[in-house]
């Protein structure tokens, strides 16, 4: 009898916990995989291509906060009434990576002109793929997508793995990804002037049962001095405060 009473008390206490005590669910771009747990260890993360995550949220996935690697996805959710106004919290740069030692002797982004290389890039729907194509257009190098053997990946982590484990001679990733695997990949020169503007935006998801207060707190934390320090430590750029 005593045992039953204790069990009932425990169950009652569990039910009485406010929703905020449950882990916040964050859907975040793959390139944020390393930094986000540094900012909030308690949240539950689902990392993936921003476009895939956007689609999942549109279909009712239980996300509280969405962190996208380009504005397009977050803005689309905002326009559809599925999230609050997106906020820019980080920037990034693109880099061309090769397996350590550059065995295919790519040399620089211009080395892709020679053709016949195995090149790994994001598919056109995922931010890294979109940014890569913009970068190549700016450099007037779009033709390298025809003269090399291109494999298209659905997120930046897959591009990184493919190059790091020798499945491709070169690939385009964010600077922050290259830093995370610097013992396996080398970064090659990409001109500063041609860098497309890479903007990360976060938005609080609007759906029944979402922990909007918790999501707002984490988004604020990301944009706080502590959050900016963590982002900087992992190689991200920072937008102006405000």
């Amino acid at each position, binding site marked *: 009898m005593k045992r039953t009473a204790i069990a009932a008390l425990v169950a009652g206490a569990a039910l009485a916990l406010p929703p905020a005590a449950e882990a916040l669910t964050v859907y975040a771009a793959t390139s944020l995989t390393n930094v986000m747990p540094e900012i909030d260890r308690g949240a539950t993360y689902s990392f993936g291509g921003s476009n895939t995550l956007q689609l999942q949220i549109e279909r009712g996935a239980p996300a509280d906060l969405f962190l996208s690697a380009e504005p397009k996805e977050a803005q689309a959710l905002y326009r559809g009434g599925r999230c609050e106004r997106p906020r820019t919290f980080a920037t990034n740069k693109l880099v061309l990576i090769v397996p350590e030692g550059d065995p295919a002797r790519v040399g620089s982004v211009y080395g892709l002109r020679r053709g016949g290389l195995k090149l790994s890039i994001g598919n056109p729907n995922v931010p890294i793929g979109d940014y890569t194509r913009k970068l190549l257009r700016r450099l007037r190098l779009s033709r390298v997508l025809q003269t090399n053997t291109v494999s298209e990946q659905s997120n930046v982590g897959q591009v990184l793995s493919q190059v790091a484990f020798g499945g491709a001679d070169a690939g385009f990733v964010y600077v922050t990804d290259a830093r995370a695997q610097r013992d396996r990949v080398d970064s090659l020169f990409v001109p500063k*002037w*041609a860098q497309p503007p890479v903007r990360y935006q976060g938005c609080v998801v609007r759906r029944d049962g979402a922990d909007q207060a918790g999501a707002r707190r984490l988004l604020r934390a990301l944009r706080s001095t502590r959050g900016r320090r963590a982002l900087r430590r992992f190689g991200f*750029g920072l937008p102006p405060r405000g």
Partner: protein
Amino acid sequence: MTRRSVLQGAAAATVAAALPDGAVAAPPAPAPIGDDVGFLSFGAVAESVLASFYTRAQALGDAWSGGERRLLDAAHDRHRANVDRLNAVLGPDDAVPLDDFSRRVRVGTRAGALKVGRELETLVAGVYLNGAGYAADPGTRILLARLLAAGHACEAWLARLAGHPAAGLPAPVDLDTAGLRLDTYLRDPSS
């Protein structure tokens, strides 16, 4: 494409750009095709560096006469307007945000300023000349030719101030070479 065909294409675009209004039908609006955006993006970044150069040169104060300062002002405004003009053609998806770079243009003396200014104007005009020959879209070619003419006029003016005769049209400069040079004037503010 040979150097000769580049120059012929550029010359045709320059002539079209230089004709007085009404002499020909209105030129086509620029609608960059594919990698044409390379010339325009480079132009937007380079024009912002040129605008910074004229601001720095202005700051030398007494190094210039009143008339020269007014011309420096006008050149700054023209280059700044060119950034907006190029970004408008690039569209919201490809426009170059100015806060992505800080510009490092160091000028300490009048002679130094004239040297840096001429180098920059020549570099950018060389890329426009290249673009006027290579761009696929006729409207983009004409826009680049107009920017080339304006930039060349600034270079000629700086040459006169330096006591040199104005040079002819600059040689075309390929984007790879010009980009490396332009990069030396840029710094990533987040790095």
